[in-house]
């Protein structure tokens, strides 16, 4: 099995840019495990032979992309609720709001579980927002935050939108 460094080299040969490779890596479970072990993003990327992205301020274009990606879980909740509402023949708007609220509530339940699970030695579960975030970033790598500032922006966007659904938004990776 090829090592991670060999995979990165192969990806470079295939024409992927370092930014695209970083984006893919930063959403992988191994990257998250390294973070949980206390390593910073820069340290992990440096170990893999990739330069940590420079935090040179936030451009409007990047902000828009990151915020669009951060809105994905809420949009997914709204869309899911609206679709169920349409199928069930009920009013669309309340069903959409209910969908977003239910997703937010599920996220909160997941976070509460993850918070208490260490006492019983259970593994953390992946929350709904994490699933949606990963799917979004796989389909649209450019929406993944690359810098600390972009991470804060994503957290603020998810938190603000999530608060409106009533259950808050997780900003875990």
């Amino acid at each position, binding site marked *: 099995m090829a090592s991670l460094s060999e995979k990165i080299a192969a990806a470079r040969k295939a024409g992927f840019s370092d930014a695209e490779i970083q984006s893919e890596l930063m959403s992988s479970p191994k990257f998250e495990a390294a973070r949980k072990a206390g390593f910073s993003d820069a340290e992990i990327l440096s170990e893999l032979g990739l330069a940590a992205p420079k935090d040179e301020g936030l451009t409007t274009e990047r902000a828009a992309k990151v915020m669009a990606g951060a809105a994905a879980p809420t949009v997914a909740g709204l869309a899911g609720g609206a679709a169920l509402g349409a199928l069930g023949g009920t009013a669309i708007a309340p069903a959409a709001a209910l969908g977003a609220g239910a997703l937010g509530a599920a996220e909160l339940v997941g976070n509460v579980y993850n918070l208490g699970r260490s006492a019983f030695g259970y593994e953390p579960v992946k929350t709904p927002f994490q699933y949606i975030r990963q799917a979004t970033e796989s389909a649209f790598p450019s929406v993944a935050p690359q810098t600390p500032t972009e991470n804060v922006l994503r957290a603020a966007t998810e938190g603000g939108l999530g608060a409106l659904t009533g259950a*808050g938004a997780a900003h875990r990776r």
Partner: protein
Amino acid sequence: MQAQLTGANLIAQSGRAVPSVVNALAAQPVAQAVSGAAGAAVPEALYQGGETNPYVLGASGLAAGLGAGRMAAGVTSPARATTGELAGAKRGRMEVREQTAWNRAYGTGGQYDNNSFNAFNMNANARLRQEGFMPGDPELRPVERALDHLTDAGRSNVLDMREIHRLRRRIGDISTSQDPNVRRLGGILSDEFDNFIRDPVNARQGIDPRTGVPFQDQVARGIQYMDRAIDTSSRLFRNDEIREAIRLASVSRQDPLGALRNEFGKIFRDPDRLRQFSADDQRVIEDLAAGRASPRAVQLLGSLAPGASWSGVAKGAVEFGPALAAATTPAAAVVSPSLALGLAGLGAGSIMARRAQNALATRASHNLLASTLGGVPALPPDYRSLSPLLAAGMQGVNAMAR
């Protein structure tokens, strides 16, 4: 069967709670969004800066969300009229209505018979003596002065509606005395006086030379206006009692729940004051006096809230001490993180429950204030401080669950 009923009740109660929660969340969307955004962004910024302690991250999310939410709430939501303020406006209208009714009663030209009034004075005097009044008792001097006033009026004054109103106010002064015995005797005298003036038989005999109408007919018409005025004034009197209790509670050092319990306890323990209120109002007064203006679960949880007393400080130390220690020293060396988290969660929940108790007790007292005036719309609870707290609390959980 009992279990089914209990289960059904639980579901019904949960169902009724949903609109309350939705109202709380929809109350202030801007403040809520700001609270959620700040509560998420600040711990993320700390995390990006290298902070990984979940307690620090959780506390920073809670503090930032709460602070930002409250600021946004203050900016975006101008103070809303409370039930108490609406009751204040209605009170002003009722005071005008009372005076208008008296003015109309004056206009009827009705007069009472002085002999009948003198007989009333003698009967009232005898009744008060039966109830413990002793002429010359220095503690009951106000009652004696009021009786003297009535006697003088019966001997020498024309007992028209204006004079009757003046005498009624004079009796009203002693029925609101701070001395419970004077107040009790004043209440009896007031009831006797109202019985007298409401009976047209006590009208002056003969025909009013100015109008050509019998005095008895004019008094009968005047009684209709006086009834309206007296009903309004007795509502205003009850309103005064509640308003004064709320005013005294508002300047107390205790929190609203404790201060209202104290003030309404004074009314509840005084049968003479309590009997002035309707049965429904008496029940609310009893609940406020017993600190029962909120659901039982909220009362139980609220009783665990930290406070300024010795026991309150001890509760705070037990609930938040382990988590604070864990935030500053390695958690494992102090106490189990789960236990620390559980205690802190219990403490946070008890503080929220106590806030809810304060809000519900305040609302109950304002609704009672409105009820004494009759028909002021009761407003739902004010969620201005609660909705940012919800959003911030959730972001605190999210930050810790990283």
